[in-house]
């Protein structure tokens, strides 16, 4: 149901985007397309292959000697030229723009090469020699929170760097009086949204006026501008941040590029020329940011009629290796609205913030919402199941009653407006829920797994800039002073011929802000939107900005658009006074329409818009007495409802709160575990829709990502912290084939707190769709504990039970004896070599012979008793990498057993492992048995994980074949494959 509630002639209409023509014609200029100063150099970044290691030494000599290389910077230079970034907590967890002394996640920037072009810069990366001493890494948040866990920041003394608990209402009483308590623990995975365009920074240090001039695709919020300028030891105006009009997507992620801005500023200052850096896909997936993974234990106090009277939430949020501002935002941005769409007065929340050896967490569309709604809405389904009630009945029983808005939620959100019951009614009626239930019945009668899921979400928009101070105690907040609000800027200019141009502070990331701004301003000035030019570039030296400036928290519709209307109204008032002066009528009689300005009493005597505007430029003397010439007005807006947290820790985290109600039908294939979305209905009340076409665009985007989060997207880490999702072949975003068309329904309940009545709509489906699909899968399969993403392999494992047994007594794969973590490659096997054990033994201990046996061995030298260092070219097919290997043989019991350990390091990654080898004389030769386990980390694990086991087998085979050949024995049979692996492992090569 789309109510016809246009606000003006253009606002509220589904107008086509003015941004599209340049985009479709290939004329939109993205940050990477913009011209740079002649002499601009290019940077490439060397990254850690280890999740946790001490940097013993870095030797840049060889890299500096490479062609075209102008500089190589390491932590040493960064420490000289900058200060660590400010963080939200007062704890010693320093972060610089390059690692200092220690790396804490795979992909952490260790050094930067500045060269004439990017190719040369990347060539030189291979020549930087870093010696690491690997340290134990901690990856799983529960492990990190344990006593005695390896510390990510030893100086902080703990990995759990913040614990806050909150109590609202009378939770103990609610739980004591409840008929039952329903409980569920969820483990929300690491994921992100992945812009097509990575980070781009062009930094130019102007030595003479001491200005860092930066062009980037930073998206704000500018709360981190002071963080950057402090790190660079300059005053705010000396750090000029400029951004392009077009962005290849943000989703919040382009906030977290600020360490690279500082890094390139320092690089530019060091080399005396501009430096450009373009992040590539591997860098982005490995090291940009992820939404925090979170473990939430939720409890609901429930009455037998389905009424929920209280909640308890215990959250453990994983921020990875560093707490980059504005982290831990995702833990607090939803704080005021943790009760979701439900009228529940009593609640406790425990928030724990944990550090691990993973990529730092950051801003991602939904910003904490996908995590908490996954817990809340899964829990509400459990309430229904445990009470034997219909899920939708339980939802209806608990929704905030219509007529109670503005509604103060338990934790402080002031929910501006809504009619949740009506939204549910529209959704079930227009989305034909009854029909969907029949489809479920039919499918189930045929033995198919079919389920229906629901999700209720309250979608916050326009963050209170003070919400993060909720992490501090009341006393700490008093000391620091109150923080709140969200200041928005827009400017409307009218030139001497009546041309209207608009600028604004929203740093659009593809949403179509220029289209809406032109609609808003056109309505005020009585002209056509296409007559208005919007320039969405931003420049902190020229344009007004505040800490709230930027593109995040769906703030455009409720903050920037109203600021533009304010500016336009000032322009209109001025033009009206000029027209009234010329026409000699009172200015409140003045009408603006179709490019004309006239008195409502005399429409025939109309002035052209351009004529009135021109007066302010051409003939200031004709202006009304006391009026300033020219026409350029700034609109500045901040809502008074965004108050700082109060002494009861209540916080109105956002200005507006939309409502989303989703349901869907899914089928799970019993054979393959694949989820098919049969129908998806999403209903939104986002207040007034400024442009319904753009609103639907936001819904489509959030929904498509929600499907990815539900079914396929996850940043996977090995137990050792190796990163395994470094390309789009492993981090699986849904494509058009995986995203069925949803039915989108709207209703419009205006917000009373923002001038245009509009709320946010960009993030709702990022919160609702993952849990809606999970609830449907739970309904289809009866499974309680569902961890996203619900991949076919995972679901098949849950629904199929035990697989048929191995048919005959072939050797089952035994568990590995060696400790292997990460992309832990482990195995064991045996092979036959047609010579005596002594001969095999000799080969293994003779560097000259061994060098001939090891595949791809360019050089092997003895570096100690039974310790070797080797230079190897390893690979399969055309895939080759050069590695330095160290291998030691210990616990020698000639010619029977030995223990092998070692490691590999090269530009493709690093490996550590060990194993055992046993020689046994058998008829006609020797049986060599072995087992091994090793980890692989770095690039090869990130982009080639699926190939590693196979590659290990290939290399093992080659080794044993060559071993056989070197001892004069005939070729090893293929059954000996694992034999060879062991040897390889011996070399440390082995996977």
């Amino acid at each position, binding site marked *: 149901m789309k109510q016809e509630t246009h606000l003006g002639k253009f606002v509220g209409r589904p107008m086509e985007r003015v941004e599209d023509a340049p985009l479709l014609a290939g004329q939109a200029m993205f940050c990477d397309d913009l011209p740079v100063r002649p002499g601009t150099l290019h940077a490439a970044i060397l990254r850690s292959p280890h999740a946790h290691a001490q940097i013993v030494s870095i030797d840049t000599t060889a890299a500096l000697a490479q062609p075209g290389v102008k500089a190589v910077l390491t932590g040493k230079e960064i420490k000289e030229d900058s200060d660590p970034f400010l963080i939200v907590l007062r704890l010693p967890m320093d972060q610089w723009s390059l690692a200092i002394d220690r790396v804490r996640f795979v992909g952490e920037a260790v050094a930067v090469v500045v060269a004439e072009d990017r190719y040369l810069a*990347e060539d030189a990366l291979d020549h930087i020699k870093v010696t690491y001493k690997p340290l134990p890494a901690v990856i799983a948040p529960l492990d990190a929170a344990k006593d005695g866990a390896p510390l990510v920041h030893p100086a902080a003394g703990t990995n759990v760097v913040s614990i806050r608990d909150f109590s609202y209402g009378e939770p103990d009483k609610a739980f004591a009086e409840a008929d039952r308590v329903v409980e569920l623990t969820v483990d929300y995975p690491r994921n992100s949204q992945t812009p097509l365009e990575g980070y781009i920074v062009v930094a130019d240090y102007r030595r003479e006026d001491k200005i860092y001039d930066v062009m980037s695709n930073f998206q704000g919020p500018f709360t981190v501008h002071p963080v950057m300028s402090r790190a660079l030891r300059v005053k705010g105006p000396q750090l000029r941040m400029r951004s392009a009009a077009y962005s290849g997507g943000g989703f919040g992620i382009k906030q977290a590029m600020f360490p690279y801005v500082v890094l390139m500023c320092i690089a530019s200052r060091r080399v005396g020329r501009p430096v450009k850096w373009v992040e590539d*896909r591997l860098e982005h997936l490995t090291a940009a940011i992820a939404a925090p993974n979170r473990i939430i234990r939720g409890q609901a106090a429930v009455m037998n009629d389905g009424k929920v009277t209280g909640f308890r939430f215990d959250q453990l949020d994983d921020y990875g290796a560093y707490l980059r501002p504005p982290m831990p935002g995702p833990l607090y941005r939803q704080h005021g609205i943790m009760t979701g769409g439900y009228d529940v007065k009593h609640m406790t929340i425990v928030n724990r913030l944990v550090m691990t050896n993973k990529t730092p967490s950051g801003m991602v569309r939904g910003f904490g919402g996908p995590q908490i709604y996954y817990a809340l809405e899964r829990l509400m389904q459990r309430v229904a199941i445990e009470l034997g009630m219909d899920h939708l009945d339980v939802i209806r029983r608990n929704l905030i009653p219509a007529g109670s808005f503005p509604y103060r939620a338990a934790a402080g959100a002031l929910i501006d407006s809504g009619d949740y019951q009506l939204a549910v009614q529209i959704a079930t009626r227009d989305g034909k829920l009854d029909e969907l239930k029949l489809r479920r019945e039919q499918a189930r009668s045929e033995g198919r797994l079919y389920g229906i899921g629901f999700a209720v979400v309250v979608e916050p928009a326009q963050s209170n800039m003070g919400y993060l101070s909720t992490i501090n105690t009341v006393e700490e907040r008093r000391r620091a002073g109150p923080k709140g609000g969200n200041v928005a800027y827009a400017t409307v200019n009218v030139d001497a011929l009546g041309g209207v141009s608009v600028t604004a502070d929203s740093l659009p990331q593809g949403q179509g802000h220029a289209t809406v701004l032109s609609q808003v301003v056109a309505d005020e000035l009585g002209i056509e939107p296409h007559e208005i030019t919007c320039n969405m570039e931003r420049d902190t030296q020229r344009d007004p900005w505040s800490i709230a400036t930027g593109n995040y928290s769906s703030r455009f519709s409720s903050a920037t658009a109203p600021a533009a209307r304010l500016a336009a109204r000032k322009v209109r008032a001025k033009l009206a006074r000029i027209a009234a002066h010329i026409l000699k009528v009172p200015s409140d009689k003045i009408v603006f329409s179709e490019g004309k300005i006239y008195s409502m009493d005399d429409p025939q005597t109309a002035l052209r818009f351009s004529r009135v505007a021109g007066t302010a430029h051409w003939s200031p003397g004709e202006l009304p007495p006391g009026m300033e010439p020219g026409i350029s007005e700034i609109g500045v807006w901040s809502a008074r409802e965004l108050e700082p947290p109060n002494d009861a820790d209540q916080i109105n985290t956002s200005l507006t709160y939309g409502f989303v109600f989703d349901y869907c039908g899914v089928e799970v294939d019993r054979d393959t575990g694949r989820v098919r979305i049969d129908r998806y209905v999403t209903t939104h009340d986002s207040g007034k829709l400024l442009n319904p076409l753009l609103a639907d665009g936001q819904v489509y985007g959030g929904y498509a990502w929600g499907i990815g989060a539900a079914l396929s997207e996850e940043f*996977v880490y090995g137990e050792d912290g190796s990163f395994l999702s470094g390309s789009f072949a492993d981090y699986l975003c849904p494509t058009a084939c995986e995203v069925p068309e949803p039915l989108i329904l709207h209703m419009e309940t205006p917000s009373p707190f923002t001038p245009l009545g509009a709320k946010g709509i960009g993030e709702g489906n990022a919160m609702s769709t993952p849990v809606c699909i999970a609830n449907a899968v739970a309904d289809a399969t009866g499974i309680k504990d569902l961890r996203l993403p619900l991949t076919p392999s995972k679901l098949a494992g849950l629904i199929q039970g035990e697989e048929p047994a191995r048919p*005959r007594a*072939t050797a089952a794969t035994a568990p590995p004896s060696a400790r292997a973590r990460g992309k832990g490659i482990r195995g064991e096997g045996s092979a036959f070599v047609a010579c005596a054990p002594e001969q095999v033994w000799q080969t293994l201990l003779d560097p000259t012979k061994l060098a001939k046996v090891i595949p791809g061995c360019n050089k092997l030298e003895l570096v100690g008793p039974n310790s070797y260092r080797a230079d190897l070219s390893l*690979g399969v097919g*055309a895939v080759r990498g050069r590695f330095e290997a160290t291998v030691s043989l210990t616990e020698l019991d000639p010619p029977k057993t030995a223990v092998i350990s070692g490691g590999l390091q090269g530009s493709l990654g690093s490996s550590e492992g060990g194993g055992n080898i046993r020689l046994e004389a058998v008829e006609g030769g020797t049986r060599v048995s072995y087992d091994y386990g090793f980890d692989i980390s770095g690039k090869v694990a990130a982009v080639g994980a699926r190939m590693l086991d196979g590659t290990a087998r290939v290399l093992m085979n080659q080794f044993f074949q060559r071993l056989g050949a070197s001892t004069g024995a005939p070729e090893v049979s293929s059954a000996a494959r694992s034999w060879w692996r062991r040897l390889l492992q011996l070399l440390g090569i082995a996977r």
Partner: protein
Amino acid sequence: MKPSAFEYIRPGSLAEALACLARYGEDARIIAGGLSLVPAMNFRLVQPKVLIDIADIKELDYVRLDAAHIEVGAAATQARLLAWPELATASPLLAQALPHVGHFQTRSRGTVCGSIANSDPSSELPLCLATLAGSVILRSKGASRQLAAADFQLGLLHTARKADEMVVAVRFPLRQKGAGYAFHELAERQGDLAICAVAATVTERAIRLGIGGVADKPAVREWSDLPDSGLDAALNEFAWDLEASDDTHGTAVYRRQLVRRLGRRAILEARACRN
């Protein structure tokens, strides 16, 4: 993600290409569509010194039919084969499998021979070649030879091609009379590499089943006179024999289950459409 420096040669004839190969050997790689090679070069997993681009070699850009085969030249794209009007009648299996090979966009660049020469164990085309018992034609400057699929496909990204040889064409046997064909795969998304792909051909007496994505290369098994009651046991044995391993997309257990379940599905379907 920039490749290391390489020399780029774009010969206009096969003879010229083979001369280049003879000259550079191991240091050279043939590039056709570049769908696998270019990403690997950008990751610097592959660092050829010389790239020999065969896109301009008209004599290799063909799909043709002889009495027993479809022969596809090395420059022919997957899209070209898929659009070839006789495909569905000449090779029902290829017609079913090709839509799973990447996407419309990638098929318009990716070549049939390139996929087979790359020998990725999860690719559909090497699986079809193995299941149909097709062959590969290799040429070097001085010689030409034809290898059966089983002799050509040696393992993970590993074939019997010698450094101075080039895959100039592949041959898929034509549909047999009285045979039925079926192809299924499970990939997480449409167009992804298969977690498990199955190709079945069923004749009156024999069942031939090929499995991709599980072992290091396409695995083919043939049964004759297999009673329906023995099908599950036969598939279970096959599944266990493939030495499946875990990766981030699927467990070994899952892969074995797919061999059993998709294998059964494909065999029954192929049998049902025997002509």
